């Protein structure tokens, strides 16, 4: 009996030790979701390094999603399987973090970190905060420029980078007329997702040319799509001229980039923060390409919008908030950000990072990648709007692609004004939309004139 008891005690002790060892070895997993593909190699490298060297027993699980990122994120949140940390670039901040799914960082952020990111000047309502709560940290600034193939320009004799609607349309036509037989076309746009295509063209042109954010006038508090018809008309002109790459109506941005990398597209519009990484890592190319200025009608009314001031948010329902903040602090540490900036994988908006970095080769090669005086972060236009019928991206894409029923641009714009303003009024009335009106809003100083 005594032997049996001793044996049982020994087994229990051994099992307890084994469980203890296993528990000690089990790492705290912090899941990070991103939609950025261009900096994948770099980020995976810094994450692998962190996973090997950190002393907090944390393991970062880094997952990259494609064009359906917002959808996957929504599904993750709705089913309680969301990540601990998520990428907020593009509309994700407005759709996910701002409405209340991000963990406020005010209490976690140290004073040193706050100053590192730029202090009060780097944080603002609707940019990376809501009602004084910091929901994301500054990282990069990215805006849209014309991306052009210099080799093609040289072949057809274009010596000056086109800047106005007429010049871009004429250049696209010239390229297609001269090189179309070789399968080289003047212009391309990724209209498979009208939101993605016009979000990187029309939206930025509306800000710079007419001082409107997504068609919304902050001073009057109304949607004014009728003002921007010349921009839509310019994009449609290139389709009517036959200057566009075949199949633009079913082109995603990455297939478009592969064709640009193959030297078959003269011009398209895309982000300063992405394209260098794309053509260095994702689709390496020998094509000589560069950025040109965003196209306008020759008159500037506002600063060009720039996506910036935010990068990652922490899920407010994360079970490991401290570990998640430690990971966020690592991802936004000076070493990680300097490395990424110097490799041209993002355009830093943080002065401390810029000061401590060599001027990136990317910016030396493509000066317009850097933030210009005419670029600025803009406040958000009203969020959570429920517009009945098609959104303005689909409607204007219909006109651009000459779809039957979308021929009368002025009527389309008038209908959009009616539907968007009705949705705005209804949302404000039932309390689902917060009114956003800045009576003294100056598009040439968008962040400074928010009050």
């Amino acid at each position, binding site marked *: 009996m005594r032997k049996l008891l001793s044996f049982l005690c020994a087994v229990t002790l051994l099992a307890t030790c084994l469980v203890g060892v296993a528990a000690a070895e089990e790492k705290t997993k912090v899941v990070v979701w991103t*939609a950025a593909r261009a900096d994948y190699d770099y980020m995976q490298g810094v994450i692998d390094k962190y996973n090997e060297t950190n002393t907090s027993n944390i393991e970062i699980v880094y997952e990259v999603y*494609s*064009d*359906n*990122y*917002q*959808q996957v994120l*929504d*599904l993750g949140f*709705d089913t309680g399987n969301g990540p601990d940390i998520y990428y907020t670039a*593009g*509309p994700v901040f*407005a*759709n996910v973090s701002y*409405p*209340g799914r991000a963990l406020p960082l005010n209490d976690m952020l140290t004073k040193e970190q706050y100053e590192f990111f730029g202090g009060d000047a780097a944080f603002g309502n609707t940019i990376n905060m809501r009602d004084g709560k910091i929901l994301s940290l500054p990282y990069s600034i990215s805006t849209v420029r014309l991306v052009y193939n210099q080799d093609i320009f040289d072949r057809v004799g274009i010596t000056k980078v086109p800047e106005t609607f007429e010049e871009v349309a004429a250049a696209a036509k010239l390229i297609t007329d001269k090189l179309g037989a070789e*399968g080289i076309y003047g212009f391309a746009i990724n*209209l*498979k*997702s*009208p*939101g*993605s295509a016009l*979000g*990187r063209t029309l939206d930025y042109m509306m800000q710079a040319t007419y001082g409107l954010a*997504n068609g919304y006038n902050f001073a009057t508090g109304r949607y004014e799509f009728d003002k921007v018809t010349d921009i839509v008309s310019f994009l449609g002109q290139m389709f009517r001229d036959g200057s566009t*790459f*075949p*199949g633009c*109506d*079913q082109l995603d941005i990455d*297939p478009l980039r592969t*064709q640009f990398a193959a030297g*078959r597209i003269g011009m398209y519009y895309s982000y300063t923060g992405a394209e260098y990484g794309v053509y260095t890592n994702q689709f390496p190319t020998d094509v000589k390409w560069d950025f040109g200025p965003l196209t306008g009608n020759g008159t500037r009314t506002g600063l060009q919008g720039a996506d910036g001031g935010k990068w990652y948010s922490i899920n407010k329902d994360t079970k490991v908030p401290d570990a998640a903040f430690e990971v966020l602090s690592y991802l936004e540490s000076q070493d990680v950000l300097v490395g990424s900036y110097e490799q041209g994988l993002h355009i830093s908006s943080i002065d401390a990072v810029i000061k401590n970095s060599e001027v990136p080769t990317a910016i030396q090669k493509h000066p317009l990648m850097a933030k210009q005086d005419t670029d600025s972060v803009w406040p958000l236009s009203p*969020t*959570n*709007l*429920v517009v*009945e*019928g*098609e*959104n303005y*991206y*689909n409607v204007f*894409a*219909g006109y651009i*692609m000459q*779809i*039957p029923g*979308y021929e009368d641009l002025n009527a389309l714009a008038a209908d959009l004004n009616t539907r968007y303003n009705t949705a705005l009024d209804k949302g404000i009335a*039932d*309390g*689902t939309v917060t009114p956003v009106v800045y009576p003294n809003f100056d598009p040439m100083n968008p962040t400074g004139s928010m009050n």
Partner: protein
Amino acid sequence: MQTSMKQNLRSRLKAVGKGFKENKQIYFMIFPNVIMFALFSIYPICWVLKYMFYQYDKINAPIFIGLDNFVRIFTRDPYFWKTVVNTFYYVGGKLIITLPIAFVIAVLLNKKFLGSRLMQSIVFMPTIMSASVMALIFYLILNPYSGALNTVLMKMKLISVPINWLNYYNALDTIIIVGVWGAIGNYMVYFLAGLQSVPLDIYESADLDGIGPVRKMFCITIPMMTPILKTVVMLVLISSFQDIQSIMVLTEGGPNGASDVMFLYVYRMFFPISATTASTSQFGYGAALSVVCASLIGTVTMLYLRLTRKVDDIF
């Protein structure tokens, strides 16, 4: 009186208890399915039936709006009805093309010849492929700038300029072809099973009467296949109404709704497809749309069952 009622109730309860005891294995086996059914079917249906009367975006609290979602569907949302027309065009097109091809292939492969099993496997293969992967492969074949189909047609001098198979005018027809390609193998198997169940002695009698192969096909094979044809048509109808994966990958319903179908539209109300633009979920409106879509499919199914009731009377 009360005593007799009590006794009656007691004896009834006893009977139920006895019945349960006798069939406890059956109840025990059914129980998990009942729970699953309640969780994954009854609960979502109740959820939809509640929220169809609300404006709900999952961020703000739901707002009761009565029948406004239905008023919007029937009076203020022409785009939805465009997707309904597209859906019926797609279902009709897929049905009309799939059935004869699957039947002819089944008849051909029903004959034993060297490699007939291999051929059956090859024809069946698209069925086991993921619809999304299939759509991606078709994009590589059909895209107008480097697609294999245009390249082959141009090399054969059949066309001089690439055809945009996925533009506004062609997208839906192309999607039907992709759907047909993925479905033929599946329905061929049903037809093969049907063909093999036709008694051989009928054909032998026909042979003795000197009836030719074409007449045998129309007077024996097809009539004998009618019950299975009824089932196959039903399966094609139901599966076609639900086809959204390949459309989502291939065209996302575009250009400008040219290939959009009603369930993809409903899906977008719950999960707006957008990587770069601000978008708001409309759960309440999506719930109302689901009910309308389900009613439309229910009506089609009922009409079909009524029309084919005669078949049941004959066979």
